[in-house]
């Protein structure tokens, strides 16, 4: 819904277009602009380059990294505060090498280790689209990292260790569809940025590509074809459905993935979504082997079951099967059985909201239960969910709940 204020702001933005001296797109590049818009959507640029309540692409979001907060820049074509003075070569330099015009180094919070695989033609199209946006004046403090991370030259060393510049190279012997999927996942989609563990320098561990990671105290799950915690039990069609609508019969996107679906994947072409799914299904499986489930007689399981029946079963059902489109199925849920239980604990403590798309507008909510479940109780019910109806995953302790509760409470303040 557009708020009253948003409408007035919209009117102001439209008014700006009529002002003299404002850059506008070349009139004859409509196809390139449309192509660029699709690519900018696939890259989900708007997610990071928009502050809460701010104008799209005008930057100002504080990205939390282990090294401090980085404010995202304004990428509207405003001369003074955006990329209005950038050339196509400047833009390609940022995408492919992580360098600003003039040579300053960008931090890899901007995922140029992925974008380096985007073709020059695609980068030019994205540039053309961004040039077609209304310029928004929004000055962003780009130097918020503390010492020593504020020394951008240190990225020379980082790049030498972890950055491999280079175009995407299709894998021979694979289908065009697979390679299209690889180009999107390994490049513009930068899926690995969240779904791959980080090393101490904040670089993705190449050996563990797409095997899952914890980000903002959420679990970005394993999205290899692993049978236990990955996409092994998901069909290509289910992956497409998930990216398109935000849900499958077993899962509903929430947390950061809700935004990815709403802003990006739900608006992508079906053929690209299918290519992504084919790539994820065919490129292989990797993950930890799952522990065998705790016995139902385990004391933690008995406490957990009592809480589950009282608090969870009305929606998720006694059998853990949930309700289609509204309450995720917990039996067989890969989110429930990730080695890292952060998402499951977090959603019990703080609640959450599902993605809303044209196909599935309802966006159901999970209520917050943190106010009435102690750390021990939350640990027990999460342990029960992780080890019931054929699920098997490591038990969760009260200490883990306590630690996460502190982090997510602090994150809200």
């Amino acid at each position: 819904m557009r708020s009253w204020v948003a409408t007035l702001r919209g009117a102001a933005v439209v008014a700006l277009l009529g002002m003299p001296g404002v850059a506008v797109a070349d009139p004859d590049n409509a196809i390139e602009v449309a192509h660029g818009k699709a690519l900018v959507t696939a890259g989900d640029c708007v997610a990071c380059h928009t502050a809460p309540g701010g104008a799209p692409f005008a930057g100002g979001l504080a990205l939390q990294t282990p090294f401090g907060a980085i404010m995202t820049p304004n990428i509207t074509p405003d001369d003074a505060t955006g990329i209005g003075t950038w050339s196509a070569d400047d833009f390609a330099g940022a995408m492919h090498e992580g360098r600003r015009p003039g040579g300053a180094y960008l931090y890899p919070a901007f995922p140029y280790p992925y974008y380096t695989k985007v073709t020059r033609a695609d980068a030019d199209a994205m540039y053309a689209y961004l040039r077609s946006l209304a310029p928004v004046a929004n000055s962003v403090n780009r130097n918020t990292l503390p010492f020593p991370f504020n020394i951008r030259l240190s990225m020379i060393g980082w790049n030498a260790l972890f950055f491999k510049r280079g175009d995407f190279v299709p894998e021979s012997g694979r289908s065009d569809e697979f390679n299209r999927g690889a180009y999107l996942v390994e490049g513009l989609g930068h899926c690995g940025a969240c779904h791959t563990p980080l090393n101490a320098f904040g670089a993705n561990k190449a050996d563990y590509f797409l095997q899952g990671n914890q980000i903002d105290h959420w679990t970005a799950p394993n999205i290899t074809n692993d049978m236990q915690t990955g996409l092994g039990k998901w069909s290509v069609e289910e992956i497409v459905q998930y990216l398109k609508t935000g849900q499958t019969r077993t899962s509903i996107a929430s947390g950061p993935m809700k935004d990815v679906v709403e802003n990006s994947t739900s608006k992508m072409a079906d053929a690209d979504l299918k290519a992504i799914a084919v790539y994820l299904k065919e490129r292989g499986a990797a993950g930890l082997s799952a522990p065998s489930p705790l016995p139902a007689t385990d004391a933690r399981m008995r406490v957990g079951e009592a809480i589950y029946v009282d608090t969870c079963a009305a929606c998720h059902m006694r059998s853990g099967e949930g309700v289609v489109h509204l309450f995720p199925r917990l039996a067989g849920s890969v989110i429930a059985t990730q080695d890292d239980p952060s998402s499951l604990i977090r959603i019990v403590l703080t609640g959450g909201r599902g993605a809303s798309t044209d196909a599935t507008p309802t966006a159901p909510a999970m209520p917050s239960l943190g106010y009435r479940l102690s750390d021990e109780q939350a640990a027990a019910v999460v342990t029960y969910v992780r080890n019931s109806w054929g699920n098997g995953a490591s038990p969760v302790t009260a200490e883990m709940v306590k630690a996460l509760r502190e982090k997510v409470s602090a994150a809200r303040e």
Partner: protein
Amino acid sequence: MARRLPRKDVVVVGLGWTGSIVALELARQGLDVVALERGPWRDTASDFNIGTAPDELRYAVRHDIFLRPRQETLTMRNNPSQTALPIRRWGSFLPGNGVGGAGLHWNGQTWRFLPDDFRIRSHMIERYGEAIMPEGNHIQDWPVSYQDLEPYYDKFEYVAGISGKAGNIKGEIQAGGNPFEGARGRDYPTPPMTQGYAQELFTKAATGLGLHPFPRPSGNLSVAYTNPYGCSMAPCSYCGFCEWFGCANYSKSSPQTCVLPALIREPTFEARTECEVTKVNLSSDGKTATGVTYVDAEGREWEQPADLVLVCAFSLFNVRLLLLSGIGKPYEAAKDEGVVGRNYAYQTGSGSTAFFEDAKFNPFAAAGSLGVALDDYNSDNFDHGPHGFVGGASITSAHTNGRPIRYHPTPKGTPAWGSAWKKAVRDTYQRVTNVGAQGSVMSYRNNFLDLDPTYKDPLGRPLLRMTFDYQDNERKMANWMAERCDEIAKAMGAKTTQLNRLTGSWSVVPYQTTHNTGGAIMGSDPKTSALNRYLQSWDVSNVFVMGASAFPQNAGYNPTGTVGALTYWAVDAIFKYLKSPGPLVQS
């Protein structure tokens, strides 16, 4: 002084069932639509957490989601010889406040009126002669037939996901459904709810008496359902917190579950909440609405120009807004002239409370629309000749709730407090059930709405004045129905029964029902109706008025199904209007 805002194509006054439906349908045509809602925004995810939604004290006792009398109330009297006084605490009915309106706090009972209901005046006179018509009545045929509305009933039922069993599909009577209903094109979108023990006894007893029980059509859903707008609902958990509550389980049909998730995605739709429309503005000749004036939460006054004004507030407040805006001639009972305020009607309630010696009804396992009903005594499904009244009732065995604060039925004569009361509550709670009759109310010259000459709201505008009483016709009907209920209750095996009759004058104090109808009725003659058959004002053709205010009189059913059908019927008419603005019916 109101500040003028940029023009919109459509302004919608009130964002409940009718407002959200018209807003979605018109926004999907690409029109710029703004909805102005007096109360706050409400949605399931933000407002109705399962841990806090079933709070009887907050919602049922303290009226959390209802209109505060200090925002607006009305004055009330039983007849024109009395002086009306303001209602200072809502009792007999409870107007909603905020997004969702009455569609948020209702029980979910979703009926179609019967074919005879739409031509009740002609039908009754044809069958029984003029003599059966009650004294002082204003009973009118509807300007639409059941056949006209059938596709629109269907549309609303499929949007709301109603759980029921068809009794008549394209003329073929269906076993287990209501054999008296008008022919429908197809079955309900979802199967009936699972009934309780009382309903089992009722079904057996009624069938034994030669009656035709069937599961009540329910907006508490039996199974998961996704409607044509893509909005999803979950199966009801039978918690019994429906009426006066928002549903936290996505199980009750409401604007929140069925329409708003799709509506708020529409790029040309905008909602402004806590904005109270004070007036529909008219051109200098009074024939065209130019928009509305409203006051926002900070008390600032705005003018919102629009090409089309859709009045979608609660029935009573639709009537008041027309009166305050000078749209249509105000009704004057003394002269029996004018149209706005004419034919206000309500609903009767009567029945039999049944006390069992040895039963366990588990009334807490309930839902607002759970129940088995029968229509053998509704409309003209039975011979009215020997009884001398017009109208009828749907008779139902239901448990809508067994909530701890308010649900403690005791036999008549039990002390109201103390150990004897406690013992009676304990002894009775599991062993009592009810057979109820929800009856029609006809329209009369002296039951009407107008502006109060004395009392004003905080903005200085006159309050609406309600002049209403049950007439002999309604008392006769309701009391005859109570006896029918009692026969069934006894056949169910009740040890003792207690008749609940309709006696004396209508009282505004105890809660009865929020089925307030009429006042801006639809009709074929501009002298006796405010709206034409498309809910379009006869006088101002770019104003349409949705809701139960359009009913010429009330039938023996809950109104929402018919309100929904009329809304979709009007939406189709508005599409035609948009192609060629002007009156859709020549007066």
